């Protein structure tokens, strides 16, 4: 046993190894990314960045069929992409253990929605377990593989941002190396033709009853004895908030949140005067508990459905009285995220904003083009939606008698994830939009992971590099051009040319992510006497720039510690006041 401080994600990776896990597949997504990142550094196992979450889960299903314990990791919205294989893997069950790690994001630290993934457990009739710190995360992964093999089911291990990204003390054990089970072949179990699926559906229903019975005595559920005036049923991170806010209260801590241990819940509820159910997001536990006929005194009638909780919030809402709060300092301005100095997205959005185009956006750093000063992105739905939505916009406008060629902006990793299908669809269905693929040679927003277009595997080994331009041509796109997003005058000219052409145009920018690849050119400096204070350069929206009003016009300065020397601001300048150092 060795003590270490691990994040929940690192602990899950460790638990996978201690459970003898051999195959892990994932697509990056905050807050789930570090599980696979950690595993990619381990020898003797297969860890891969799959092209998307559906593929990742299917690879893990294949791993399980082959006889090795397998793990698929993704953020909550990734489960939507992987829902198709999940719903039927629930029927086939497993050969070796199969675990789906899904990380929810209450509070929306880095997501487009706040969905509660636990509903998928109920929809697929597969078990869901929820750890409440890193030490539990490690143990729960091991338990998940045991459950998976004992009950012949995929298991969902659900975390939230505060579980995945908080670090706490973990005791690690040795990695296990059990031999594989060998490939499973079983027509009735693994080939989901209707007649086989009918029988497996009956199995799934029976399995759920057996899981429920098992949960009654599972060590994953615990009762902390205490004051029974108000007793709490809770799970995950909310357990920590409850313990801190009400350290003396009796608590039933649920590790198995689907299916629920009904008898255990009834017995606990009968011994407390008032029952409180504390959970972030949806009343997933509460509604099931109420359906048992158990009275819940305090739940979503006092606790919010939106956002994340804290010990303070739980204390206030359960006690029904506000705690004193110091006033924050007034007049502070916000600090929203922005493009890194030197980022090639800056050049692109400078042009898109100038041309006042309708831009359909996607998931990645380039979503930030929606914020000032660009305000040049008009929709962002989900991974890959930019291209398909732009196609729909063009068609819809045409039906209303307007020909306006919209623009779709998508990154390389997102394009490979699910933008390709949108482009195939657009080309096939006679679309009319400009598709800009900002290829920065990495999965940027999640911290810089490899993908099929980078030429390297998750483990850093050389891998075949997908050629995006050739792929687009193979799809049937006639107009495929390379652009340099840093050269804004050229880009503007190309954009105008492509907007005038009917049909799909694909523009590909191949400029590396400055953060991932540590690209740094010499900082620029403003010659004070030449600067007229016209503020044209500020349209570059770069935090290295600042304007000081002084005299009639004022002047602009460049912070030498922040400037990356990309020169976009210099191209906007009409006085030539920016000099290289």
């Amino acid at each position, binding site marked *: 046993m060795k003590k270490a401080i691990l994040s929940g994600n690192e602990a899950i990776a460790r638990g996978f190894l201690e459970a003898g896990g051999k195959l892990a597949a994932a697509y990056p997504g905050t807050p789930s990314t570090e599980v696979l990142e950690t595993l990619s550094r381990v020898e003797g196992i297969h860890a891969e960045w799959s092209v998307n979450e559906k593929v990742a889960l299917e690879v893990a299903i294949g791993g399980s069929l082959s006889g090795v314990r397998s793990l698929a990791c993704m953020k909550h919205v990734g489960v939507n992409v992987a829902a198709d294989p999940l719903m039927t893997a629930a029927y086939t069950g497993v050969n070796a253990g199969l675990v789906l790690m899904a990380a929810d994001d209450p509070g929306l630290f*880095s997501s487009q929605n706040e969905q509660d993934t636990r509903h998928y457990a109920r929809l697929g009739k597969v078990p869901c377990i929820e750890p409440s710190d890193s030490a539990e995360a490690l143990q729960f992964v091991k338990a998940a593989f045991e459950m998976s093999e004992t009950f012949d089911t995929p298991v969902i291990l659900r975390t939230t941002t505060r579980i995945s990204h*908080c*670090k706490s003390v973990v005791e690690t054990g040795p990695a296990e190396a059990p031999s594989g089970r060998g490939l499973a072949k079983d027509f009735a179990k693994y080939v989901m033709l209707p007649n086989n699926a009918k029988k497996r559906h009956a199995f799934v229903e029976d399995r759920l009853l057996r899981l429920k019975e098992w949960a009654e005595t599972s060590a994953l559920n615990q009762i902390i004895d205490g004051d029974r005036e108000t007793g709490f049923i809770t799970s995950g*991170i909310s357990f920590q908030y409850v313990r801190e806010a009400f350290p003396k209260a009796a608590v039933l801590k649920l590790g198995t949140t689907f299916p629920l241990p009904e008898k255990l819940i009834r017995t606990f509820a009968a011994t407390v005067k008032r029952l409180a159910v504390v959970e972030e997001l949806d009343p997933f536990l509460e509604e099931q508990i109420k359906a048992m006929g158990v009275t819940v005194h305090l739940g979503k009638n006092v606790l919010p459905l939106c956002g994340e909780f804290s010990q303070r919030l739980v204390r206030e809402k359960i006690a029904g009285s506000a705690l004193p709060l110091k006033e924050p300092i007034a007049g502070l301005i916000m600090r929203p995220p922005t493009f890194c100095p030197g980022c090639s997205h800056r050049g692109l959005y400078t042009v898109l904003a100038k041309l006042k185009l309708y831009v359909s956006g996607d998931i990645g750093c380039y979503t930030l083009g929606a914020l000032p000063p660009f305000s040049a992105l008009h929709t962002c739905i989900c991974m890959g939606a930019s291209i398909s939505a732009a196609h729909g916009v063009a068609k819809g406008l045409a039906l209303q008698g307007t020909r306006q060629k919209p623009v779709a902006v998508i990154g390389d990793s997102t394009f490979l994830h699910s933008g390709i299908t949108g482009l195939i669809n657009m080309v096939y269905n006679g679309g009319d939009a400009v598709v800009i693929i900002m290829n920065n040679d990495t999965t940027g927003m999640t911290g810089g992971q490899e993908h099929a277009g980078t030429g390297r595997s998750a483990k850093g080994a050389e891998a075949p590099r997908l050629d995006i331009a050739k792929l687009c041509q193979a799809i049937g796109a006639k107009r495929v051009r390379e652009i340099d997003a840093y050269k804004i005058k050229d880009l503007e000219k190309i954009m105008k040319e492509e907007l005038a052409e009917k049909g799909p145009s694909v523009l590909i920018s191949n400029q590396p992510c400055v953060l991932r690849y540590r690209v740094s050119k010499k900082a620029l400096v403003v010659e004070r006497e030449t600067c007229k204070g016209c503020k044209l350069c500020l349209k570059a*929206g*770069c935090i290295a720039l600042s304007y000081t009003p002084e005299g009639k016009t004022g002047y602009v300065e460049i*912070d030498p510690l922040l400037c990356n020397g990309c020169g976009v601001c210099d191209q906007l300048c009409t006085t030539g006041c920016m000099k290289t150092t």
Partner: protein
Amino acid sequence: MNVYNILISGVGGQGVLLTSKVIAEAALLQGLDVKQSEVHGMAQRGGSVLSQVRFGDKVFSPIVTEGEADMLIGFEPLETARYLHFLKDDCVVIYNTRPIGTIGVSIAAEKYPEGINDAIKARVKTVMPFDGTQLAVTAGDKRTLNLVLLGAALKFLPLKESFILDAIKNTVPKKVLEINQKAFAAGRAQGNK
């Protein structure tokens, strides 16, 4: 030991996470329970970043809420001021006085608020403002600001110096260890002034 709560705030990309990592590691070496929280993803793109470390005999929640913080280590004045209402009455604030404009300031849509240093001083009992960026640059790299600030915070931290020094060795990559140790020493000297 009662739970001691530290907030570390700054701008995405300044290296806030390393400071909290070193403190958490030092607390573990001292035999304490410790929890640390951080934010990844979108907030790291130049946005406001907050990391939190809590240590003591037993720690439940990994986050620090309003009115609970014993110490605030600020990497930037505006990001220091933003979290003052999280502090206890008898708290300590150590912060870097070098401002970083927001994107709103850079596009001249907003003004960086004036009088921030005075506002902080007026609200906080023990406050240590200094140009940490300058000390980091002198030590050899602006990115060592995290160790400069940790050095300055040392005399207030209820953790043994030897554990912090070991934690630095365990946490900082070998290639840049020496320059970070230099930055830490510069911060400590500043703190003892």
